[in-house]
């Protein structure tokens, strides 16, 4: 999933806030800036934070949270309504988050002491493969029920995956479809969904409790892929095709009791959901209320004020922006009401490898790039942790390294040495927003100091991704964000840097094409042990950066969100949004 540049349109209040308070009080003591920590210190990024759980991890119910109690209504404030609710069509983090309440998958992620553990959700464990990853077998738990009390059967999972092949059902991830058919993005040529009466024999449901997937090639990551919502069960007779997107048939702990599109939605308890079958979801509140339409800043201000109903408010994806990060983090009262964690999103400044073909030039860009200055404009440590690697600490096998060894402010002298007197021209493209224009200034200054000639090129914010996604674009350096669909190198490196995936509107924005690296990716994709594969992805990550320097790693994104004083158990989950699964109303 790609990330849009965070554009925040500040609403201009009175030009002169004459009635406002006196002048501002300043940002505190000098040591705050001197030491990178200070009160803005991010939670430490944990390495090796991913583990594959076994059957005992997968057994419900989820461990009770001390103090937590059942009942009450929790309120969720979002800027816009959910575009999709059909489990086969969701791909955006806040949509995936709400579906945690409305659907269940074969596997899912559980947070245990800061560690992300893959566990069975509908399945008893994370699946087994008798032949090194080509065939995957999942056995369902007992007593699984839909919102109407009927049983969840293996055939419904088969049908749920099958309908994700249909051409009407767009927008969702396509990992499972591609791996089953082995045809890549052309998977519909093999099978095009159940709506014309055909079923797909690569997915088998020999009995009510067993579902078997026969892949075209071994894929050790398959248990991760079925944690995405594509594997949600859908009973054939309840499939309303496109209307399913508006009101999905729930297999999760809640069901939609009313929905007014673009205004609000109310979820009420699915009485047939059995907590004993669920290792992850708690479902403490009786009701979830959603309100759409407020701007990000408004949402944060409402939660800060916490009046009336807003006392129990939270938000899935509205982060605390740079305009109020300092206020929130330095007011103990507010800081106590924040959920703060790293997300799977990593951000880069991609170098156009088709235009900047000289390795020395690319290395010099990496050495001179002012990461810290740029992050300061975006909000400092609240924005994320400066990075030097391609894959982030939330990914299995992550290993820290630094391919150039320069301070985070960039080292113009070192870059000059690498350039050895050359003065290449670099076209730096960025979305035309006030914040990015300022970033343009900082990047321009740093690269100019290192001997580059910089052309700062603002691009219309709306068409930014289209522009930099053109393979024939005329820019040399541009920002992009990438979030891993699951915590494995295969969800990052091939998507971002496989030369065979270069295409218009593709995700290899750096246009990096190294045959040896692509071959290595294919090799690691077939390693049957995910832990071993993790190590190899990390090694490939280091090799790419050391030998080719195709991008400038920028930050691992952090998500800082506020919630009302009436809620407990609010945490940032694996998807990078604030999770509702442990929330309870005080």
């Amino acid at each position, binding site marked *: 999933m790609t990330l849009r540049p965070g554009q925040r349109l500040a609403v201009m*209040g009175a030009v002169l806030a004459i009635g406002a308070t006196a002048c501002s009080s300043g940002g505190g003591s000098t040591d705050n800036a001197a030491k990178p920590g200070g009160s803005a210190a991010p939670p430490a990024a944990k390495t090796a934070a991913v583990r594959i759980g076994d059957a005992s991890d997968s057994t419900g119910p989820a461990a009770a949270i001390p103090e937590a109690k059942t009942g009450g209504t929790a309120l969720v404030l979002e800027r816009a309504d959910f575009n999709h609710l059909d489990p086969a069509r969701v791909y955006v983090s806040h949509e995936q988050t709400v579906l945690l309440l409305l659907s269940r998958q074969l596997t899912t992620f559980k947070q245990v002491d800061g560690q992300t553990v893959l566990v069975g959700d509908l399945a008893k464990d994370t699946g087994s493969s008798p032949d090194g990853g080509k065939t995957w077998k999942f056995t369902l738990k007992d007593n699984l029920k839909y919102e109407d009390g009927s049983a969840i059967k293996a055939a419904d999972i088969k049908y749920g995956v099958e309908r994700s092949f249909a051409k009407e059902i767009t927008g969702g991830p396509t990992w499972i479809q591609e791996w089953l058919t082995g045809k890549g993005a052309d998977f519909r040529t093999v099978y095009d969904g159940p709506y014309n009466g055909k079923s797909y024999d690569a997915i088998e449901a020999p009995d009510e409790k067993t579902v078997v997937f026969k892949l075209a090639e071994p894929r050790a990551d398959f248990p991760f892929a079925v944690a995405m919502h594509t594997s949600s069960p859908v009973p054939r007779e309840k499939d309303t095709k496109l209307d399913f997107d508006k009101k999905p048939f729930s297999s999760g702990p809640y069901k939609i009791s009313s929905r007014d599109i673009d205004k609000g939605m109310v979820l009420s308890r699915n009485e047939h959901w059995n907590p004993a079958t669920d290792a992850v979801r708690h479902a403490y509140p009786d009701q979830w209320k959603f309100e759409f339409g407020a701007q990000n800043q408004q949402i944060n201000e409402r939660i800060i004020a916490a009046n009336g109903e807003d006392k129990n408010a939270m938000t899935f994806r509205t982060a605390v922006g740079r305009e109020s990060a300092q206020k929130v983090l330095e007011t103990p009262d507010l800081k106590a009401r924040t959920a703060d964690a790293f997300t799977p999103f990593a951000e880069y400044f991609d170098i156009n490898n088709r235009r900047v073909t000289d390795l020395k030039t690319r290395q010099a860009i990496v050495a001179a790039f002012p990461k810290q200055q740029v992050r300061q404009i975006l909000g*400092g440590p609240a924005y994320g942790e400066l990075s030097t690697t391609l894959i982030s600490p939330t990914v299995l096998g992550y290993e820290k390294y630094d391919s150039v060894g320069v301070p985070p402010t960039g080292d113009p002298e070192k870059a000059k040495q690498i350039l050895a007197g050359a003065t290449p021209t670099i076209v730096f493209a960025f979305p035309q927003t006030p914040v990015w224009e300022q970033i343009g200034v900082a990047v321009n200054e740093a690269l100019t100091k290192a001997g580059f000639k910089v052309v700062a090129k603002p691009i219309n914010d709306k068409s930014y991704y289209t522009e930099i996604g053109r393979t024939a674009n005329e820019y040399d350096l541009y920002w992009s964000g990438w979030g891993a669909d699951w915590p494995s190198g295969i969800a990052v490196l091939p998507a971002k840097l496989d030369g065979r995936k270069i295409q218009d509107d593709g995700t290899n924005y750096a246009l990096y094409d190294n045959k040896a690296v692509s071959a290595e990716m294919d090799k690691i994709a077939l390693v049957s042990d995910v832990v071993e594969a993790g190590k190899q992805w990390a090694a490939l990550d280091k090799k790419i950066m050391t030998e080719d320097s195709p991008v400038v790693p920028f930050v691992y994104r952090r998500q800082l969100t506020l919630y009302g004083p009436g809620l407990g158990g609010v945490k940032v989950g694996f998807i990078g949004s604030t999770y509702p699964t442990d929330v309870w109303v005080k």
Partner: protein
Amino acid sequence: MSLSSPTAEAPSSASATDGSPAAAPAPGPPAGLTPMRLAWRRFRRDKAGVAAGSVVLLFFVAGLGAPLFAKLYGKDPYTTYGQNEPGLLNDYGYPIAPNGGISGEYWLGIEPGLGRDVLTQLLYGIRTSLLISLAVVAIVTVLGVVVGVTAGYLGGRTDYLAGRVIDVMLSFPSTLFFIAFTPVVTSLLTSPGEEMSPLLRGSILVMVLSAFGWAGVARLLRGQVLSLRSREFVEAARASGSPPHRIIFHELLPNLWTPILVTASLAVPAYVTTEAALSYLGVGMVEPTPDWGRMLLKGAEVYQTDITYMFVPGISMLIFVVAFNLLGDSIRDALDPKTDR
């Protein structure tokens, strides 16, 4: 700040121009003084006008002398001091010292985020705003006078045509047009691989603003000329066989100076705010050219933590606009004693 074409609101009292030609006796003037000297004398007696005039003069000096001042002061508006020197900005990018980082070294503080010097940004920002608005006012006035006087004097079909064009221009949604049109021009004039120079960008702004601004001036002057055309002294000139250009330049224009001067002086602050508004909306001057509109935009964003940064450009602009408007009023009063209070 209003985005409407500023010259549309012409001073109503301007129509009360002293109708007689230059030689006509004004009510009880001391002998031997020209009307301009008389006006100057009246202006000097107007305390508010003199004060406003001095403030405006100060702004002009500050803006045009900004580079010199920056040299003496030892800072420039482009260097990111806060990012280069530790101890000026905190982790979040806000000034560490209170009141937006105001100190002996940075007299008006430093900018959050990039850490540039606010005082020099402000001074260079005045220069940007003033140069652009003066250029627009010059173009708009000349164009407006030419079209307005021609239409009014010739009358008939020319007047009708010009009148309709002016109507269209005045009813055009100019703000929307600026927002939609500026990026198009920008991309037409620069290739993806090159940066647009601030001069070119400024010229585009001037052109776009002028394209709509002249209509108001033209309409005002057309009305003035229509009423002057049938006055005795013009009739007399025509009867005595003066050619049209002589009538326009020697009979009409001297009587039009008052409305022209008044509209122009009131248009300057209006265009300063319009330019700032366009920059605020993202279609004006871009980084790194210092600009008040963008400073205000940033101020609106950071006001929760650093309200000083919003006050500085806000108060400056308020003072400037009020002073310039008062000056415009005083000029009108001085030139047109009938409206004297």
